[in-house]
């Protein structure tokens, strides 16, 4: 009996012969027919909900293409008018988010078909711009950040991005260079800011000579460390959100349909593309996210170190020297002691680059406290006045 029940669940993908066989089985077995009726009722209910929440499927196509500068004014107006309802529908039906992803893959397939055709016929591709990703980046791109570590008392903001990438979108944006991280790498920006990219991240930065304080993170995870300029706030655009940097340093994270921000320190504002005016402001140690076209969630406490563990670094936010020493001790599996006179000193807004090693971190800590690092017999260190 289990075999017909198993097959019933997939009735809609059976061959006509298989269906006929099942129909006969249902005629002979009321329990089987009962189960099938319930199942089809459930499926019908899902379908009705989808139809009620999304009466016009073309909106999904417009939404999927919204960030690619291919919509005309009427289409954009249609999409804008439907954004609220569309956001509700996508929240209620996770499958719609997958459909959007599928449509974006369809678009990429169309691009490939178009490019193959035009290249085969020796034509210049219609509206495609020269892929900036194929040219060497104009900025200094370090394959790995240097082994030296840097104390950064300045505020740190981190936004963690995960998921698949919108590479094709990035490649077609004029005025921006596209950088794809094949490994953990750092990118230096002209104003002294820098971005650390996790493997797989795709970042767009302004082409050389464009005085634009903006970057676009199309996918993956990145940690931004931005030089403070109150007269010219830095913005990070993601496929569905905008992050405005109000402090000095920040990091960003996004998937193709979700942007999550985890702030180590400093201040940022996060807004959905659906309503750029309705931004939330994050304080250090908080997180917020924008799912599809929703407004940003209210900031909630975040485990900054867990969120940014991919960097390999330690982030310290307003913690006692005793606690910092304890964390460093655990991170490096080495005893670290702190003199009682220093144990209560507060360390804040700090990032330890793990590659630099424990002793270097302790030396820097000691320097900031006017203390010294003393090696312990048997291994380990002590920070003493």
């Amino acid at each position: 009996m289990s075999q017909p029940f198993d097959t019933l669940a997939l009735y809609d993908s059976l061959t006509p012969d298989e269906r006929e066989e099942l129909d006969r089985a249902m005629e002979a077995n009321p329990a089987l027919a009962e189960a099938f009726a319930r199942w089809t009722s459930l499926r019908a209910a899902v379908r009705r909900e989808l139809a009620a929440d999304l009466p016009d499927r073309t909106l999904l196509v417009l939404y999927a293409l919204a960030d690619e500068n291919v919509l005309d004014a009427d289409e954009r107006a249609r999409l804008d008018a439907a954004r609220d309802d569309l956001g509700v529908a996508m929240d209620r039906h996770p499958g719609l988010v997958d459909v959007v992803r599928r449509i974006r893959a369809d678009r990429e397939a169309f691009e490939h078909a178009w490019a193959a055709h035009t290249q085969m016929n020796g034509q210049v591709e219609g509206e495609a711009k020269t892929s900036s990703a194929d040219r060497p980046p104009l900025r200094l791109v370090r394959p790995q950040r240097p082994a030296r570590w840097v104390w950064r008392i300045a505020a740190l903001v981190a936004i963690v991005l995960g998921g698949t990438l919108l590479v094709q979108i990035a490649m077609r944006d004029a005025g921006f260079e596209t950088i794809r991280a094949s490994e953990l790498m750092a990118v230096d920006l002209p104003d002294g800011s820098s971005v650390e990219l996790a493997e797989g991240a795709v970042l767009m930065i302004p082409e050389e000579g464009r005085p634009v304080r903006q970057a676009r993170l199309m996918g993956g995870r990145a940690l931004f460390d931005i030089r403070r300029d109150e007269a010219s706030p830095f913005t990070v655009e993601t496929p569905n959100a905008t992050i405005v940097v109000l402090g000095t340093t920040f990091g960003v994270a996004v998937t193709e349909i979700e942007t999550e921000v985890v702030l180590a320190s400093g201040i940022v504002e996060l807004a959905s593309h659906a309503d750029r005016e309705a931004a939330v402001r994050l304080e250090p140690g908080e997180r917020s996210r924008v799912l599809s076209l929703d407004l940003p969630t209210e900031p909630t406490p975040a485990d900054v170190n867990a969120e940014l563990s991919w960097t390999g670094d330690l982030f310290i936010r307003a913690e006692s020297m005793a606690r910092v020493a304890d964390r460093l001790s655990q991170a490096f599996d080495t005893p670290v002691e702190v003199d009682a006179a220093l144990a209560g000193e507060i360390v804040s807004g700090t990032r330890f680059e793990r590659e630099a090693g424990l002793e270097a971190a302790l030396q820097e800590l000691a320097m900031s406290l006017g203390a010294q690092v003393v090696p312990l017999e048997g291994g380990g260190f002590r920070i003493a006045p």
Partner: protein
Amino acid sequence: MHSLDPQAVVRAQQGDEAERGRLLAALEPVLRAFFKARIGRVPDVDDLVQNTLIRVHRGLEALQKPNRLKAFAMKAALFELQDFYRGRYSARESLYDPDIPPSDPAGVGSAGLRLDLERAMEVLTPHARRIIELREMGYPYAEIAETLETTEAAVKMQVKRAFERLRNVLSALVLAILATSPSL
């Protein structure tokens, strides 16, 4: 092969029927390659190409920027593809319409046990719900698997499990009804 350049679009928009024909002929292989890559089934691809070309033909005058033909054709193709999944091609569509059960061989519809749909929906895990929603949006299991970056077998297994959970919930409901309804 005819060029898909903006001048050709302008001439077609201005009433040059020969130019319009060449333009559509030039689009045909692009669309065919696209739909073949996404759908693969030749009869469906034929229909999709033809209907997309009709969309382009009918909408060409409304294309305000002749240099945006690619975007215009792409949107037409994507709209058409959604229509395909929605079931507009039902003559060829093998998907079963769950709104119309093929039969009620045991007469269960009159058995008096009505499905508590809300309760039933709760038995779906978020993952199973995604799969069923995609299925109800018209996507074949193979494409659902591709979208979710898993295998078709894994997708079907999720559906079977959801079905099994639904059966278990229903069994519990029936027992509860029997226990509280002495007349049954």
